């Protein structure tokens, strides 16, 4: 277990040492989204009855930040270790592939939650939000961050160059998060796009996370959590199989 803990703590230290870039910068980005979209759309849009648009937007922004940063942590760390070659220290140590996977995912979850909490703290100035079902919110945050951390591990293993990783981030992760209903409810979409949104796993994470704040959601939270858990199990399974085989890391 010491191997797991060491790798986990090393991964934490890594992003904490550059926290201006890894925590403060994404918090600022989210606040800019809030200022712009909140300013432009406040009063024009009411998604849930009696809920101001800014209040609706904040949980979505928080969760989007959690997801993006969880992905960024494991993927960029693995990629850097591969590029600089210092991954050998982990590969030559008596650390199992499962310890390797869980250490990267756990550190990604911490980074995601830390940035999400940062956004929550600063947005508390704009709107007073109350958590009506905090366990749902926490559950979705943890599981969503875990899923994206695992996706980051997957992308980090498979990518051979920085630009491949960037492509994955820009053409897969970013569109899926932006189109997940952070800025709108999918009920406001034309039927085709609404149905398509149901195929986006990010939608369930945002929707479920938001349920904890308003007690209302597009899909029942239990169903959403099940879908997210299933997606996590699938990605984790693929990662573990790849790590066990040594795919691209040992070959």
């Amino acid at each position, binding site marked *: 277990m*010491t*191997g797991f*803990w*060491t*790798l986990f*703590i*090393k991964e934490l*230290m*890594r992003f904490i*040492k*550059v926290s201006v870039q890894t925590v403060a910068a994404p918090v600022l980005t989210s606040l800019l989204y809030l200022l712009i979209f909140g300013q432009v759309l406040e009063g024009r849009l009411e998604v849930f009855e009696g809920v101001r648009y800014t209040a609706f937007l904040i949980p979505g922004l928080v969760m989007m930040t959690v997801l993006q940063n969880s992905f960024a942590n494991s993927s960029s760390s693995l990629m850097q*270790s591969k590029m*600089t*070659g*210092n991954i*050998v*220290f*982990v590969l*030559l*140590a*008596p*650390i*199992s592939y499962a310890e390797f996977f869980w250490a990267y995912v756990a550190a990604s979850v911490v980074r995601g939650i830390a940035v999400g909490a940062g956004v929550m703290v600063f947005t508390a100035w704009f709107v007073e939000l109350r958590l009506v079902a905090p366990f749902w919110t926490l559950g979705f945050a943890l599981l969503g961050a875990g899923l994206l951390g695992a996706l980051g591990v997957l992308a980090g293993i498979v990518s051979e160059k920085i630009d491949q990783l960037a492509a994955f981030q820009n053409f897969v992760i970013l569109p899926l998060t932006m189109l997940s209903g952070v800025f709108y409810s999918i009920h406001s979409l034309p039927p085709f796009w609404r149905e398509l949104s149901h195929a986006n796993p990010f939608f369930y994470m945002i929707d479920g996370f938001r349920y904890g704040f308003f007690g209302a959601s597009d899909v029942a939270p239990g169903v959403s959590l099940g879908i997210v858990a299933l997606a996590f199990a699938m990605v984790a399974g693929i990662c573990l199989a790849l790590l066990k085989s040594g795919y691209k890391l040992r070959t």
Partner: protein
Amino acid sequence: MGADAVADYRRARRMLGVVPQELVFDPFFTVRETLRIQSGYFGLRDNDAWIDEVMAHLDLTGKADANMRSLSGGMKRRVLIAQALVHKPPVIVLDEPTAGVDVELRQDLWQFVRRLNRDGHTIVLTTHYLEEAEMHCQRIAMLKAGRVVALDATHELLQRFSGSRITARVVARDGRQHVLQIEGYSTLEGELARLRAQGVEIADIELDRPDLEDVFLRLTSS
């Protein structure tokens, strides 16, 4: 060594300390942090006493809190060696440790490696410099295209593959000088007798010791 590299990988990896050929490091950490993390990977929680000792031997104490990025190439190489030693492995693999290393560090390095060897560590050294291998190693394996073409004790290898060669500078009766090369001791007696009969004077005799380069060339050319 009795540990299966797949089934019992934890024990197998604990027995090995590897110093990679490239100067790899994690730019986020200091020397001490790097060594603590490395210890943790091998399941060692409180390893500071040994870390301090290793750093002292490798002249790294003054750089303990310096970031890895700020170190010179030679210093980074020392940290790599320290990393390989944190868990006191019985076998240390040095992958071309002296490639691009200055004279002073090379001397220090060999001194330290000899000490480790005396203390009971087995050292596996890979190198392109055959004189290094000849000077430091007791057993040598030669590889060509990934296959072992020779594996033996150093002196056996030298004797088996390269017979001694004698170079003689001689002065003939007309006063002209010639250089003769005689292969192996067995023919020496006859050759000398032949020279004496022709009244040739021997000005100088040199015995060429076989070296690994000869061995290597013979093995790889055949």
